[in-house]
């Protein structure tokens, strides 16, 4: 075995052990060392040199980045997740046919989809989705994220929340919690428009808060314009949309008419 590969794998073993212990400081330190060592392998992206150890090195590097992604989730660091995921991605797309498929591939891809959903980057979500084969879409990890997106778009928020109980992988929990927060904001935004008023008790249930106190804090922080009146939550629905129709947008009309006149003159 190549001495460099041995060195990296030994270091990687220590990293894995630290990850199991949830010793994040050691993990990050070891990870940066590993990343530096990986640079010396010529067979890795972007060079993809055909060295005799290529397959071994690629597999090792893929393994390291997969663990890096898991680490970033455990550390709840979304930026690191994005970075590590993009470093990992070429191993799935560009050299996927040279290596045996990693058992972690689908869970990590699903995790990434979930992250995009949480960050409300729906366009990127769909771009990633297009890259997946029909086979991949059947995988429970991917399917989970896809169904979540659908329920989210439809507005079936309680389906999103019940999905938390059925996470296919333990790493998903972190993002599901984040998603719950996004969902709460969405529900608040929708209720504001849909109801004239709500009972405090119902509102609390709808927003999935455990006590009235939490509800009032939430209102104070996010929606100070809501009023609480003897047990009822009153949304001051702005009626300005109806009012604005009454007046004529004169400036805009003048501009338009002038431009018609100019164009017509040109034609004649």
């Amino acid at each position, binding site marked *: 075995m190549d001495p460099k590969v041995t060195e990296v794998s030994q270091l990687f073993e220590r990293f894995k052990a630290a990850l199991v212990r949830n010793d994040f400081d050691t993990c990050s330190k070891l990870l940066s060392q590993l990343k530096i060592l990986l640079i010396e392998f010529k067979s890795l992206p972007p060079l993809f040199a055909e060295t005799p150890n290529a397959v071994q090195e690629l597999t090792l590097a893929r393994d390291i980045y997969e663990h890096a992604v898991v680490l970033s989730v455990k550390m709840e660091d979304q930026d690191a997740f994005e970075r590590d995921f993009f470093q990992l991605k070429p191993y799935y797309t560009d050299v996927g046919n040279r290596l045996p498929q990693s058992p972690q591939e689908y869970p990590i891809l699903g995790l990434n989809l979930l992250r995009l959903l949480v960050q409300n980057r*729906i*366009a*990127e979500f*769909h*771009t990633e*989705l*297009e*890259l997946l084969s*029909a086979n991949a879409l059947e995988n429970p990890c991917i399917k989970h994220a*896809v169904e979540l997106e*659908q329920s989210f*778009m*439809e*507005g*079936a*928020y*309680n*389906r999103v929340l*019940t999905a938390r109980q059925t996470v296919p992988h333990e790493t998903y929990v972190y993002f599901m919690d984040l998603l719950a927060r996004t969902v709460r904001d*969405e*529900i608040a*935004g*929708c*209720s*504001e*428009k*849909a*109801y*004239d008023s*709500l*009972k405090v008790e*119902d509102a609390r249930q709808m927003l999935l808060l455990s006590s009235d106190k939490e509800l009032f804090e939430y209102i104070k922080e996010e929606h100070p314009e809501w009023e609480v009146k003897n047990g009822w939550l009153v949304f001051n629905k702005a009626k300005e949309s*109806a009012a604005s*129709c009454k007046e004529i*947008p004169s400036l805009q*009309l003048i501009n*338009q008419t002038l*431009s*018609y006149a*100019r*164009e017509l003159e*040109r*034609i004649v």
Partner: protein
Amino acid sequence: MTQDVEMKEQQVVAAAPSNSTSSATPVLQHLKEIAALIETGAYAREVRRILRAVRLTIALRRKLKASVISSFLGFALAPGSEAHSRLTSYLPKDDQSDMEVDTAASATQATVKHSSELEIYCYLLVLIFLIDQKKYSEAKACSSASIARLKNLNRRTIDVLASRLYFYYSLSYELTDDLAEIRGNLLALHRVATLRHDELGQETLLNLLLRNYLHYNLYDQAEKLRSKAPRFEAHSNQQFCRYLFYLGKIRTIQLEYTDAKESLLQAARKAPVAALGFRVQCNKWAVIVRLLLGEIPERTVFMQKGMEKALRPYFELTNAVRIGDLELFKTVAEKFSTTFSSDRTNNLIVRLRHNVIRTGLRNISISYSRISLADVAKKLRLDSPNPVADAESIVSKAIRDGAIDATLDHANGWMVSKETGDIYSTNEPQQAFNSRIAFCLNMHNEAVRALRFPPNSHKEKESAEKRRERQQQEQELAKHIAEEDEDDF
């Protein structure tokens, strides 16, 4: 997927020569005339002539035979030269006798000094022939050789031929499903074309790259390249159509439906009538995008000539969305799932589910002034463990997004629809009117700008002085329009 891009040029009737004495091989005669056209074009540096030569070649395409081409090669290239021996090696060695006669006949004319334009043209001719004969591996070798040769040539008159070569280069690799291999090459060629200000080449190569990326569903990379590549006014209508189509696809995936619809419809409209496959493809995507936007395409879209059959699945899908019936939608999606997955629109159709619910909800809100949420759930056929709660949140989201005008009553579990206001009391009609006027005026301006007058057509009718006056006026008008445009935007 191949059919849509092989947008064939409209068949140009090859100008039949009146003095065609050698009736034995009229095709060869034509080819020689084309060669002469290229020579004069190269000499006078007139790109138009070369463009015409390429068009005439396409018209001859079906009549090409190995023997004709090999004798033409003997005529156009110095026998024994590197290009000549390489190109002849690609051609199949059949009907030997015929060939010998022809080469003997053309040997006398071989003294003609050949230009590099003509050499490139020979590459193009052989390549087209090989692709038509389905000899893809030879075509790949031939196209790669031609690309290598092109790298050393930098002349504006070659650009037209080069852009064609690029296209067939990519096509030959696509037909053998090796598109990923040439991506790096195409990128390098695009860079070279940009440095040489070869706009036609850039346009063609950009499209080929987009196609290459989209073939592997790499929408992210495609969009990044597209948004950073230099843009200019289109030189070729075909290339522009393709560009619009790819742009529409990218936009669709990235959920920018309004822009996507515009590009796709424009692509479908601009495409030549002969390019049926391409137009069908554009229409399929346009239908889905319009459905996603909440519009219902008219029946005439599906009844266009030659498209009824291909658009049938999309027609049924539209029907399901129009009615807002989730069950029907599911059956249609399953029934045509093979079609949809071969069109690679499956993921888009999954997105449509949400629109089906919206339409159903809108129908309900129009028909009932007050309805219980349990009934809404029943009518929408939501199959979930907790239909009422689902219905409530779905309705509230629809209200927020402005899809329906209603309020919810949580205590009673009702949805109360508001009276639909008089639309003529709002600015809506005025806005619609304005957008139509703007469209018409814009079309007029584009038409004026696109007019091209042949320089000699008015010679007899008007004197030189008058013509000068007219040209001046035209120039002023053009300048005027350009200035106004700058003011507007």
